[in-house]
């Protein structure tokens, strides 16, 4: 078999991992504050299309990325108001967001169906470094957003475990009553991180559109990557550094169908290749479960539970 294929697959895995890491980081920060946002799939779709529209009409990729991120924050904001301020059922709220976001994205995307974007995000050029066999394309052939994302994940880890706001964030997800007793505002913290998380997811969706897909195909654009991102957070035990490793693994499974098809390897039916990412995610989730607790290891204890101060 062509040895180049492994290089290609690895490079593509890292690339796809970008969206996964961004979406998962967004979910991680939101969940670390105690809020479960299942609407990620909807946010990815909507920010994908809006970034496309923004980039297409203005000609600026970077504007597209910014607009997509902002929209991610706005949609997450709806969830934040419902989940935090109004103490609604977070699971149903997130699902409603997926449905609404999907509809909105399709509505906005109608005129752009199948259309290709003119300028894609181009990989950074590191000159001769890219020509190093094997690791060259993988490490040095990525585009700026990918590098930014890895740096973001590393920064997130430092933020979470080595700073004061990180301490407060972790406390809010674990024990909001204690945080409240210390005089910190639980609602404010939760809303802030839900918004920030939404912006990260939005960036992930925008990148997916502007770098990878470059064309709008309705829901198939994201094809469930948001759900894989949610599973990835569990897989990484809510720790940002571990996200990177898991994302590359899942990224690998996601690019399989495309790469194998491009290389004319067709003995495995396309449909089964498409199932692989989801099956791998499913198996890893099950493998990581701890019997006796309904939360995976490392989960914020107050995840998904609205905080109501005991006013009696």
């Amino acid at each position, binding site marked *: 078999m062509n040895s180049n294929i492994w290089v290609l697959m690895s490079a593509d895995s890292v690339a796809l991992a970008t969206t996964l890491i961004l979406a998962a980081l967004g979910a991680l920060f939101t969940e670390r504050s105690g809020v479960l946002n299942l609407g990620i799939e909807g946010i990815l779709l909507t920010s994908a299309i809006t970034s496309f529209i923004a980039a297409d009409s203005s000609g600026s990729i970077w504007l597209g990325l910014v607009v997509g991120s902002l929209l991610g924050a706005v949609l997450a904001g709806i969830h934040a108001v419902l989940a935090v301020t109004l103490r609604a059922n977070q699971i149903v709220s997130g699902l409603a967001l997926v*449905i609404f976001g999907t*509809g909105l994205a399709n509505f906005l995307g109608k005129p752009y169906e199948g259309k290709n974007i003119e300028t894609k995000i181009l990989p950074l050029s590191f000159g001769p470094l890219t020509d190093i066999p094997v690791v060259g394309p993988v490490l040095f052939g990525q585009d700026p957003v990918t590098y930014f994302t890895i740096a973001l994940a590393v920064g997130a880890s430092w933020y979470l475990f080595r700073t004061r706001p990180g301490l407060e964030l972790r406390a809010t997800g674990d024990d909001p009553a204690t945080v409240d007793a210390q005089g910190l505002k639980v609602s404010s913290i939760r809303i802030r991180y839900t918004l920030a998380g939404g912006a990260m997811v939005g960036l992930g969706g925008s990148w997916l559109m502007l770098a990878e897909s470059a064309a709008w195909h309705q829901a198939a654009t994201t094809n469930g990557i948001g759900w894989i991102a949610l599973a990835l957070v569990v897989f990484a035990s809510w720790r940002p550094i571990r996200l990177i490793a898991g994302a590359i693994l899942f990224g690998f499974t996601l690019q399989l169908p495309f790469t194998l098809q491009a290389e004319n390897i067709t003995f495995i039916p396309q449909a089964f290749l498409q199932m692989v990412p989801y099956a791998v995610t499913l198996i890893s989730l*099950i493998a990581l479960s701890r019997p006796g607790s309904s939360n995976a290891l490392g989960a914020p204890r107050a995840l998904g539970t609205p905080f109501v101060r005991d006013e009696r």
Partner: protein
Amino acid sequence: MNLPFRLAFEQRTETPRRLAVMVPLLSVLAAIVAGGIFLFATGYSPFETYSNMLSDGFFSSTGITDTLGLSTVLICTGIAAAFAFQMNLYNIGGEGQLYLGMIGGAWAGLFFGDRLPGFVMIPVVLLVGAACGALWIALPAFVRARLGTSEIVTTLLLTYIGASLVNHFIYRAGSYFRAPNTLFPQGRQVPDSAMLSPLGDTTMYPTFFLVTVLAVFLWWVVRRTEFGYRIQVISDSPRAARYAGISAQRTTVQVMMISGALSGLGGATLIVGTFGRLDPGIVLLGYGYAGIVIAALARNNMAAIIVSGILFAGLRTGGDKLQISTDTPIHIGVMLQGAILLFALGGEAFRRYRVKVVRMQTATAQGAAQ
């Protein structure tokens, strides 16, 4: 930002009846108003859109029957979701279980169709479909009960796998489910014995009555049987269940399997009814996801799902026809569904809590009392 007041949420011990009815209605109204504003802002006429949707969905001869016909499958997925949700088991893979129900029903129809008479075939198709739906949820059910794995993500992942399965069965050359000798890949029609005839010249099938009776039956089960009692105990207080010797694990699996079977049944009704074959377009219709919205709106009450199911079917029917009657994209309908749910969730807060604005004391107000 320090506001001079804050919102205090007091949990209500009981909800006044009028509030329980008013809040959902007002939420729907609010969503419709918001939708109208959105339509206006994007250059479509709210009045025209809504009136078309209403007439196409309800107030025309074909409208109401189309709606009732569609509600058959939606009520199925609705009760499927609600049955699990009431025990805080978030089966959101109803979509995938529906696909499997369709696959199973189609297989049963194709395999047995020529060998068994009609009045046996129909129940067989429905049962096989239900069984396949239950099969598709079996893994998530077991790992949830035994290992505590979140059923949210597991059922959802299986939906995507299910969708791939549907595509595989249609697009693979020579597939059992594929109609031979067609230009574009499409599903193979099941024999006539496996199909019901619609009522009159409508798109409604007798399965509508089956499904509504089923919903009422399940409502009765939850309220009056021992099984329902166990469900209520576990959903409110797992510790009390343990104390009383009620096995939460066993009930969890049972409830989830029933939920999966109901979605599978929904898929099978599409075989004996509307579609009559495995259709790749099913993955775009989102009937399973709609069921979740229907269940959430009906607050997991089986009997209320009949109403919310019909309402939603009307919304979809009217919405689907929008493309034909006006210029408005059908996606408006989907957005409206999402918006209604979002507003309903917001409204819930007022139903569950009494919200008070608490004014913060200032030093000046206090000092005088000396």
